[in-house]
């Protein structure tokens, strides 16, 4: 019996969050036999099928190891649940490239109530892919965004992962701990893209955290990034700043043209996927990257990434100068 894609898609569209494990089992599959089903599922929850952008707020949370992301995520989960929102977390872990194996340890540090059906946490190994995201993370985020109120993508790192996260998330939050000057240096030197929200953890450290928050604020202002919120939180009891952080994330989304941001992201993504598969020769067949971007901009806005990638492939195959 084949996977009943239409049933999965219908449940996602109905907001049935209990379908999440099956959706992930499918979109993570790299078996040739499953690729058509994955493409069909994504097409069935694409904006063109939904008639609108998927309702979820897709939040990317990234930061260096030890910055307190998991503890923070536990507190955020609780906060979202108190506001009545369902939450899916995609926790991307770096994997051991040598054996292909991976220890997915983040889950252990995220506290959740096993009886709560509105919370879904999935660990994903980043695999060989640079930039922080697991191969199936984007597809998973797109699919789950149709059913959940909030989809969180958590990655490790500073300097590269947030670039790719920005192509998937509506709001990118970077977590730093006080006393680590790295984030400041990365922002100043342009290694790190300016995040939408900057979170300083361990606010219980008092003066150190306050100073870190002030410094980051000043640095961002000097770069002209006045709209980036800087929030100090403490996830230890008594937790502080979590409500303010939830408000800041909401405020960012409210101020963002989500449809446009996602549309651009989908197009960039399709092009990136195409380039990864077909390389420089493929891009030449499209008349170069800029020409390809322009051509993509003229396509129907509601298409999902695999559909766009397929269109690019068709165009390249039909190109006269091959």
């Amino acid at each position, binding site marked *: 019996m*084949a996977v009943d894609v239409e049933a999965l898609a219908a449940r996602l569209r109905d907001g049935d969050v209990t379908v999440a*494990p099956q959706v992930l*089992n499918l979109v993570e*599959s790299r078996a040739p036999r499953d690729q058509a089903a994955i493409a069909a599922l994504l097409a069935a929850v694409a904006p063109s099928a939904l008639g609108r952008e998927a309702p979820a707020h897709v939040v990317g949370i990234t930061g260096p190891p030890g910055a307190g992301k998991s503890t923070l995520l536990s507190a955020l989960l609780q906060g979202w649940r108190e506001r009545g929102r369902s939450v899916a977390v995609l926790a991307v872990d770096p994997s*051991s490239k040598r054996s292909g194996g991976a*220890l997915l340890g983040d*889950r252990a*540090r995220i506290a959740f109530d*096993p009886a709560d059906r509105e919370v879904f946490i999935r660990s994903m*190994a980043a695999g060989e892919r640079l930039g922080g995201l697991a191969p199936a993370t984007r597809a998973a985020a797109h699919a789950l965004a149709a059913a959940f109120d909030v989809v969180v993508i958590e990655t490790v790192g500073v300097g590269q992962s947030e670039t790719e996260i920005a192509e998937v998330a509506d709001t990118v939050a970077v977590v730093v701990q006080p006393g680590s000057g790295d984030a400041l240096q990365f922002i100043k030197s342009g290694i790190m893209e300016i995040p939408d929200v900057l979170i300083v953890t361990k606010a219980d450290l008092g003066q150190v955290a306050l100073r870190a928050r002030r410094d980051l604020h000043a640095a961002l202002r000097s770069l002209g990034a006045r709209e980036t919120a800087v929030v100090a939180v403490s996830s230890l009891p008594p937790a502080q700043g979590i409500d303010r952080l939830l408000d800041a994330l909401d405020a960012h989304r409210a101020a963002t043209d989500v449809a446009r941001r996602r549309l651009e992201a989908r197009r960039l993504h399709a092009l990136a996927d195409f380039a990864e598969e077909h390389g420089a020769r493929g891009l030449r067949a499209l008349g170069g990257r800029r020409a390809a971007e322009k051509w993509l901009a003229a396509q129907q806005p509601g298409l999902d990434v695999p559909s766009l990638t397929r269109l690019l492939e068709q165009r390249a195959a039909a190109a006269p100068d091959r």
Partner: protein
Amino acid sequence: MMRTYAGHSTAAKSNELYRRNLAKGQTGLSIAFDLPTQTGYDADHELARGEVGKVGVPVAHKGDMAALLDGIPLDKMNTSMTINATAAWLLALYIVTAEETGVDQAQLQGTTQNDIIKEYLSRGTYAFPPGPSMRLIADMVAYTVEEVPKWNPINICSYHLQEAGATPVQEIAYAMSTAIAVLDEVRARVPQELMGRVFSRISFFVNAGVRFIEEHAKLRAMGRLWDELGRERYGVQDAKQRRFRYGVQVNSLGLTEAQPENNVQRIVLEALAVTLGRDARARALQLPAWNEALGLPRPWDQQWSLRLQQVLAYETDLLEYPDIFEGSVVMDGLVAELVDGARREMAIVAEHGGAVDAVPYMKAALVESHRERIRRIESGELTVVGQNRFIETEPSPLTADNDGGIMTVDPEVEQQQREAVAAWRAERDQAAVDAALAEVARVAASDENIMPATIAAARAGATTGEWAQTLRDAFGSYRGPTGVGEAAGAGVDDDAALEQIRDEVERVSEGLGRRLKILVGKPGLDGHSNGAEQIAVAARDAGMEVVYEGIRLTPAQIAASALQEGVHVVGLSILSGSHRELIPDVMAALREAGIGEVPVVVGGIIPPADERALRAAGIAAVYTPKDFNITQIMRDIVGIVARGSASDSENSPEGSLSRR
């Protein structure tokens, strides 16, 4: 002093056992508490299920403590309590029990284990985060040094570090670093003139392995470092106060399930390690039972252990000479080597900010050492007689009897204890308890000493679970580091067997559509996570995706994780003997989550009869300590997943997808 670690089922049953042991010539008490008591839960808490009365006695309130110690003269008894996270509470119950039988706290003698660092590193029965836990310890030390002056408030345990795989150097260094963390904390709350007395109250609980010459050198090295620490760091003038005092339990890690009778000679040799030279001789010695790797020892097994000590003490000439290593160049060299190594390792811990902040570093280092030890046994570099060498054996008459050679706990005990604690709550003066717990909460949020309020709550009739919950609310709960993420992978010693497994994982993953994914879980309160950690690391090295969530999980949590993570196999580890309750619970939870078809494998101390029952209930494989070859276990698990997926439909990547 001679004693055996004991306690089980109920306070009344344990009391009988203590009286029997005292009648046989045992000169002190060593109380084993069950896991709910150790982690601060009452018998009727969800997490206590399957654990009540299992590895020790449940003590929920002063009534239980009174029953446990009934008829035992507390003013004469030397009592050692294996209690850590909730040590302040159990000492309070002991003090109140003594008080109610007319014995003043100043007369009490004994030891609370109270070493929380090793709980994070090895044993897993912590309840609160490291900072507040250290504060509780320091409060106890500061309190007892004045009020219960003959009490040893903390017994720093290098024992469990060796059980977690520590090398002698690591054992010395991490124990000394823990002592420094405690002493620094106490120094902040007592006058300097008391520091000598404080220092002299700190005792150690060490391990002795079968390499007994080196182990003896380890003890001499510890004595030397301790003396130096007292003199230089804490300014202790009196040499007597700087004496290194330690008790010993000899190594359990090296005891084997295969040919368990060999454990007797191992235990004797290990006992020699701590008694051979008078300058580094143990003050108290505990010997494990020969069949510890098989399950809970019976009274006869414990008697055998006591007799081993008695032969050593009363038949041999061991105790007749001054230090027999005096002037030994070999011994001095060995000691110097260990001291140097330990100093280097202590410096690394100090660089991490001391023992509390270095917990993740030390944990990862131990997971690595343990992994190395397993590798050496698997490769045959390290001989374990009867396990990886000389494995032929005649049938054993010792384990031939039908109960599998171990004592089991009546499952009724848990139900009775649940009812008993509910009855206790119903009968006491609730207003007095509420007020006493409110006072504990107030003190917890202040910087006052926690002991007086804790003793008052014990007197008022509060329960273990209530006291601990009050502090959990004040301090926050905590999950310790697992150490597995940081542990280095297999690399230098890549061997053909490992390569073969990786190919196999690759092949099976291709068939599954995504990489083989395993959930490694520890249901229940048992915190001995070494086995689970080694399985997690080995699975990662074999190329699997491993979801490892650490200790203390409910069956519902394990099932939810297995479902959400889409794992292909679940591995459970239980060493507390609660597998009979917890494994079926996990299976039921998996079925309820709609993933009953996911194969489950189990590792732990599981008697053959239970193994058969578990297999019959649908467990795919059971691994016990005799399955020391982890590579083989990995191969086995891959095969189980491969067979399971082969029987699924061809078009579906997952059974669960088509089986909605």
